[in-house]
C-alpha cells in the first residue's frame, strides 16, 4: 500500500475524492438523523434517485447545455486569438480597441442576454453568442500578454538574424505565448459554461430553452428540489470535466519545457 500512497498522482486524485466521500456521508447521515424534509433540502440519496429517475430528460438537457458551452468556447478561442493577434500588430490598434474589450467584460451577461435573445431568432445561436461574450475576454487578455512577453534576448537574436515579422511570430511569439494562452483556456472554459447557463436562465424565464438551467427553473416551479440538485450536480460535473480537459491539454503541450507543467525531477 505504501508505494501507492507515496505516488503523487494517486494522492492528488485520492485525497479530494476521500474528502468528498466523507462530506457526502456526513450530509446523508446528518440529514437522516435530523429528518430534514426532502422539499427543503434533499439528501445525497434523494438526489441520486432523482438523477436515475429523470435520467433521460436530464441527459437531453445536459447535451443542449454542453453544445452551447462548447460552441461558445470554440468561438471565444478563435475570436479571442484573432483579436489578440490584431492587438499585438500595433500599439494604436490595441490602445483604441482594448477599452471596448474591457467594456464587454464588465457588462453582466444577464443584462445583455435579453437583448441578444430578442434580436437573434435562433435560441441556440443567441445562447451561444451570450456565452461567447462571457468567455472571450480571458483569451484576449492572456494571449495578448503572452504574445507581448517575448524574451528580450531571443527577440534581439531574431532581429540580428534579420528574421521577418512572420517568422518571428511563428517561431518566437506564438510558442512563447502558449503558457499564457493555456491559462486563458482554463478560465475561459469555465466561463463559457457559466455564460451558457446564465443565458439559458434568461431565455428559460421566457420558456424558450431546454438546457440544464431550464431544468433547474422547471424543478423550482414544481418544487422538485432533488431534480434541481441533480441538474446542479450535472452542471458542476461538466465544469470540472472541462477544467480537467484543459489542464490535460496544457500538460500535453507544455510538459516538456514550461515550469508550470514540469514536475520536480527526483
Amino acid at each position, binding site marked *: 500500500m505504501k508505494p501507492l500512497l507515496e505516488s503523487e498522482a494517486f494522492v492528488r486524485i485520492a485525497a479530494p475524492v476521500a474528502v468528498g466521500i466523507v462530506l457526502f456521508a456526513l450530509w446523508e447521515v446528518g440529514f437522516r438523523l435530523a429528518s430534514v424534509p426532502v422539499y427543503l433540502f434533499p439528501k445525497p440519496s434523494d438526489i441520486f434517485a432523482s438523477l436515475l429517475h429523470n435520467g433521460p430528460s436530464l441527459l437531453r438537457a445536459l447535451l443542449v447545455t454542453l453544445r452551447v458551452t462548447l460552441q461558445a468556447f470554440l468561438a471565444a478561442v478563435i475570436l479571442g486569438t484573432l483579436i489578440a493577434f490584431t492587438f499585438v500588430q500595433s500599439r494604436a490598434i490595441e490602445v483604441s480597441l482594448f477599452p471596448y474589450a474591457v467594456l464587454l467584460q464588465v457588462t453582466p451577461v444577464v443584462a445583455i442576454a435579453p437583448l441578444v435573445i430578442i434580436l437573434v431568432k435562433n435560441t441556440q445561436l443567441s445562447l451561444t453568442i451570450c456565452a461567447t461574450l462571457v468567455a472571450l475576454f480571458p483569451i484576449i487578455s492572456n494571449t495578448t500578454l503572452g504574445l507581448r512577453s517575448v524574451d528580450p*534576448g*531571443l527577440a*534581439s537574436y531574431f532581429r*540580428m538574424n534579420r528574421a521577418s515579422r512572420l517568422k518571428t511570430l511563428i*517561431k518566437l511569439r506564438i*510558442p512563447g505565448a502558449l503558457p499564457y494562452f493555456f491559462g486563458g483556456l482554463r478560465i475561459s472554459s469555465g466561463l463559457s459554461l457559466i455564460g451558457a447557463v446564465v443565458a439559458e436562465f434568461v431565455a428559460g424565464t421566457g420558456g424558450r430553452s431546454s438546457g440544464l438551467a431550464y431544468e433547474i427553473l422547471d424543478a423550482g416551479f414544481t418544487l422538485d428540489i432533488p431534480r434541481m440538485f441533480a441538474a446542479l450536480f450535472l452542471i458542476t460535473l461538466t465544469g470540472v470535466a472541462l477544467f480537467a480537459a484543459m489542464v490535460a491539454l496544457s500538460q500535453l503541450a507544455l510538459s*516538456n*519545457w514550461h515550469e508550470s507543467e514540469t514536475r520536480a525531477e527526483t
Partner: protein
Amino acid sequence: MNALLPGEPFDENARQMTASERPPAVEVLSAEKVFSNGTRALSPIDLTITDGEFLTLIGPSGCGKSTLLKLIASLIEPSDGRLLWWRGDFAHVGQEGRRLAFVFQEPTLMPWARVVVNVRLPLELAGMPRDKADPLVKDAIANVGLSAFGRHFPRQLSGGMKMRVSIARALVTNPNLLLMDEPFGALDEFTRNKLDDDLVKLWWERKLTTVFVTHSIYEAVFLSTRIIVMAANPGRIFRTMTIDQPQPRDQKFRDSPKFAAYCRELSTWLAEASLPSTGSVS
C-alpha cells in the same frame, strides 16, 4: 584618441607587423555613442580588428565595452563616426565569408525547442532547407561536445551546457567573426575554464576572428592575442596589451609564470583605468 603610451612593454609594433599581413575584419572609425538621455557611453574610438585575432575588451563597469561590442554587431548605431566590416558596410554582412555571430551573456535558448532545433534556428531563419541544415547542426553540436544531448530540452541541461548550445548555435552558420558578450560570466570557475579551453581550440582550428567581453583578468589573458583595457567616464580605450604566446593554449599556459606576469600587469592597468583621476580626457 588611442591612449596607448609610447614605450609600453607590450607595444603596438609587434601587432602591426602581423596585422599588415592580414586584412582587417572590422574597422571602427572614430565611432562614438551618446545615448538619447545624454549619457556619453563611448567617446570616439578608433580600432582595427584584424582577421584571425582574439581580441578581448576588459574594463570597469560603465567603460562601454558592451556598447562597443554592440556597435561591432550593429545592434546599435554609432552617434557619430562609422564602422566597416570587411571593408564594406553592414549591408554586405551575412554573405559568404562575411558572417557574424553573437553569443549573449545569457544562453537565450528557446525553452520549448530541443537542442537540435535551437541550434538549427539561424539556418532556418536564413531559409536553408532541413536536409542541408541537419548535417551542419549535427557537426556544430558535436563540436561543443553535446552529441548525446541533441534531443534534450534546455531545462534539462546545466548552465555550462546551455552556454555550449548557445555557442553551437553561433558556430553552425560558419561565422567569420564571433562576438561574445561575457558569455561565461554566470558560470563557476571550473566550468568557465573548461569552456575557455574549448573556445581556444575552436578559435585556433577555425581561424575564427573573435571579439570577447569579460570581467575576468585570467580569462582575458588566457584567451586573447590582444587585450583592450577600457576606462569609464566617458568610455574609451585606455591601453592595449598584446599577448604573444604559443597557440593553442592549454592548462600549461595557465600554470606558467608568464601567465601570472601578464595577469599582474593587466590587473595594475585595470586598477589605473578605474582611478577617478583618469576620468578626464586629454
